[in-house]
């Protein structure tokens, strides 16, 4: 069925309208203080925007709108998955947030920020989108009470610094492209130092958001300090949005800016970022005692894996990174959903997980599967992602990266096994019931992790069309 351009534009209108209505309905629910309205309104409008995006995706839409946005396979692909992630976070928060209307309002702001970043055709849109996401999640943390001020302030300051550097980097690009569009600035200036400085600043700003090696010390503190439903949002949406920004900025704008080795300069930067991030995350995770800190460090190391594909800078590499971003989104939401439930039973440390299998075998089995997937054990989705990443690295003559990645997945099995070991220690205890909303989210994540792991073809081809829509190098 061929869908005309007018129809496609209507889908865009529906998408934007649903986002606006999402915000409006949440503002109303904040005043009426009805939890149910907030919850079902948010879910319903997010589903509408998800459907509109899916229809756009199915009709192969690719055009510009409102002069700073464009829609293509890349943006639609990611917005769909972000919408699913946000729906899952909202589901998680149903019983776990005392101010659900306000939370949902902030969540709709996050959705709006994600929309700006994924559909951006202008660096300004990316800047505003990142800022919106960061600010909204800061408020989500702080509204839970006084003891959450510290992580919120940490997150706020860090994102403020990141935005400041981002703005400076943006300013340096101005001479080359006054419109600041997401396109290749004339290749004639390829050797310019100004452009190089801008690249480095962009790398700094975005790796601060994405928690790459030297800029990641805030992650464990903020993750541990925040309520777990917000942590799930931070780990899945906030962090992944900055990966989208990285992909858009570097693969499109700096694709032609080459280092003296002939490879793109950004690929060299991410080569080192990737190695250090993987090692740092994994080695520090080895000694963690708190579950949330463990997953914080583990997600740092997972960011390192994603950087492998960006460092490789080939179509295969970008495709692998996109695949891994999406798969990690599901793995980490599932993991933090279980952590949220455990926290409500006042289980915070790994030692306290003892005998979880006999108290609630579903939680133990799901956490095991999610962790095995993060460690890259087949036939789960994490393995397919790592196989794509490592093989793209070897193919681009970066065997070192693949080797270090494999060594790191080997290290990571140690700390995951530590948790698994604790959970299956035999100890009689009374059964613990899992809330339905958490169970639903965990089941969705598990289905994704197992089904895509067993039959990955669909997601791989979707990731590949997203990568080619990005105009990968």
């Amino acid at each position, binding site marked *: 069925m061929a869908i005309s351009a007018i129809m496609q534009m209507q889908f865009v209108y529906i998408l934007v309208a649903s986002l606006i209505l999402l915000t409006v309905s949440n503002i109303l629910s904040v005043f009426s203080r009805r939890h149910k309205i907030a919850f079902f309104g948010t879910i319903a409008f997010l589903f509408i925007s998800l459907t509109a995006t899916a229809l756009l995706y199915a009709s192969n839409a690719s055009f510009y709108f409102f002069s700073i946005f464009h829609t293509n396979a890349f943006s639609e692909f990611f917005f769909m998955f972000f919408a699913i992630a946000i729906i899952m976070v909202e589901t998680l928060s149903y019983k776990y947030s005392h101010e659900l209307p306000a939370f949902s309002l902030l969540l709709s702001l996050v959705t709006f920020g994600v929309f700006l970043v994924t559909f951006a055709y202008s660096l300004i849109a990316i800047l505003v989108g990142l800022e919106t996401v960061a600010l909204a999640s800061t408020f989500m943390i702080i509204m839970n009470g006084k003891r959450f001020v510290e992580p919120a302030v940490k997150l706020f300051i860090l994102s403020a610094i990141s935005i400041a550097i981002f703005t400076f980097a943006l300013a340096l690009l101005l001479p080359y492209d006054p419109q600041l569009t997401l396109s290749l600035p004339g290749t004639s200036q390829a050797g310019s130092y100004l452009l190089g400085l801008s690249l480095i600043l962009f790398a700094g700003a975005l790796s601060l958001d994405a928690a790459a090696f030297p800029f990641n010390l805030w992650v464990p503190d903020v993750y541990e300090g925040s309520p777990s439903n917000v942590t799930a949002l931070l780990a899945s949406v906030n962090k992944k949005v900055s990966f989208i920004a990285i992909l858009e900025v570097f693969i499109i704008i700096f694709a032609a800016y080459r280092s003296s080795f002939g490879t793109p300069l950004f690929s060299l930067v991410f080569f080192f970022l990737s190695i250090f991030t993987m090692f740092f995350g994994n080695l520090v995770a080895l000694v963690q005692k708190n579950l949330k800190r463990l997953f914080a460090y583990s997600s740092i190391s997972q960011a390192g894996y994603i950087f492998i594909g960006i460092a490789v800078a080939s179509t295969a590499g970008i495709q692998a990174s996109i695949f891994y971003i999406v798969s990690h989104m599901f793995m980490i939401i599932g993991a933090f959903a279980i952590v949220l439930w455990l926290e409500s039973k006042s289980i915070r440390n790994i030692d306290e997980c003892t005998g979880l299998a006999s108290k609630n075998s579903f939680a133990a089995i799901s956490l095991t599967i999610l962790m095995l997937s993060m460690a890259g054990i*087949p036939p789960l989705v994490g393995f397919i992602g790592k196989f794509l990443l490592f093989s793209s690295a070897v193919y681009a003559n970066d*065997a070192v990266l693949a080797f270090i990645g494999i060594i790191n*997945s080997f290290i990571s*099995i140690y700390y995951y*096994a530590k948790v698994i070991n604790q959970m*299956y220690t035999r100890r009689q205890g009374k059964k613990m019931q899992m809330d339905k909303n958490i169970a639903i989210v965990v089941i969705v994540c598990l289905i994704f992790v197992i089904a895509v792991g067993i039959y990955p073809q669909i997601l*791989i081809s979707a990731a590949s069309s997203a990568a080619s829509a990005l105009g990968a190098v």
Partner: protein
Amino acid sequence: MTILLSLIAVPILFLALMLLTKRRSGSLATISTFISLVIVVYLLIFSIINKSASINESYSYISSLGIGFDLSLNSISLVLLLMSSIILFVTALSGNIKKEMERTASILLVLFQIGATGLFLSGNLFLFFIFWDIGVIAPFFMINILGSANRRNASYKFIIYEIFASALLLFGIILIYIFAPGHSLSIAGLSSSLSQMPMYVQQLTFILLFLAFMINMPIFPLHSWLPDAHTEASTQGSMVLSGILTKFGGFGMLIIFTSFTIAHNYSFYIAVLSVVSAFYAALLIMRQHDIKRIVAYTTIIEMSIIMFAITAMNTLGLYGALFAMLAHGLVVALMFLAAGSIEHAFSERSIDVLKGIAADAKLTSYVFLVGILAITGVPLTTGFIADVAMFLGAIGAYGAYAVIPLFSLVLLGGFMYYVVNKSIFSTKERTQSSAFIGSSQKIGYAILLASIFIFGIIPSIILNIINI
């Protein structure tokens, strides 16, 4: 034909069924393994009639990477599949002597069944790796959840060694994937695609794969996970660990030694290493007191001798190695079943404490004795045929020196008779609880003993279809 796919689909369906229902998981596991056994026996008869085994099936999998869901059955995989399905059936039927945590044990067993069946059937290295890891994860939980007192350390050691092995394996497979013409990972076409790769890649890949399989087999000095893992695992765990899991490595060795032409350059050094390994384990076994640990060490000796025969790289050596894997799997499963039964009856595993158990547990004691005879290669048992073929093959490659590792078997035999004397047929010291043996366990003994003798007396069933 979807017969090979059905072999993998059956345990997957049963696994789903067992996860959804809460009852009768033990029987479900038994049925699942029994169906597989029936299919494999059918395949065996089919192959005997046709005098060769070769079935290939291919399904679409990850088409954008050029990786298909290729299943292939050849004589090597048929023999190993036969061994693994017999052991799995017996394990499911009679391995859970204590009848505790039956649901977990059965689910893990069927999970392992998926791994083992898939590994021996995989037609490309990608599937090989996937099933390899499923086959490693299931025993990890068999040790960690169902094991005995020291299970934590043992499972840790096991998973670290095995995941390191699979990391090496993954790197090797990625190298083959990148450098093979047309990104072909096909196992059958491995030698032709290897011949078109640069020499350094071939060497690197060979070393990576060899180390991975060496850890799994295991060969000295990378063997130290095995005694702990086998000792601490549940009876079911020990049976599938030493019966089937160690054959993953053996299967891999058969693949790389028949595919890599450069294996000739290394085979002598590997042979020396495996002789050292056999004697090292034979000397260590004399210091052991735990009856499960003793059986575990026999695995190292036997697998080292199998490795030695594979390095001969001639037909007889490879035949012998394959047959020895069949023989050893059956025998060691039998011995672990008997050892588990002894442990259950007397709540004791140390041979210093066990005295005169033959008086109380007659059947188990004699079964254990037959196991010892079979593992040392007494005629009429499968071990004899395997040893003859292996050593004839080795003599063809190394001359008279090839008999050296035979002495490790002599050492092993001597020590085992000492064990029998000391704890099985010695005078009874104190009254012990009567050792009741369930009928399921008797059937288990009977099936394993019958297959040991059938393949020992009429080896032509297997030897006629082997075609390496």
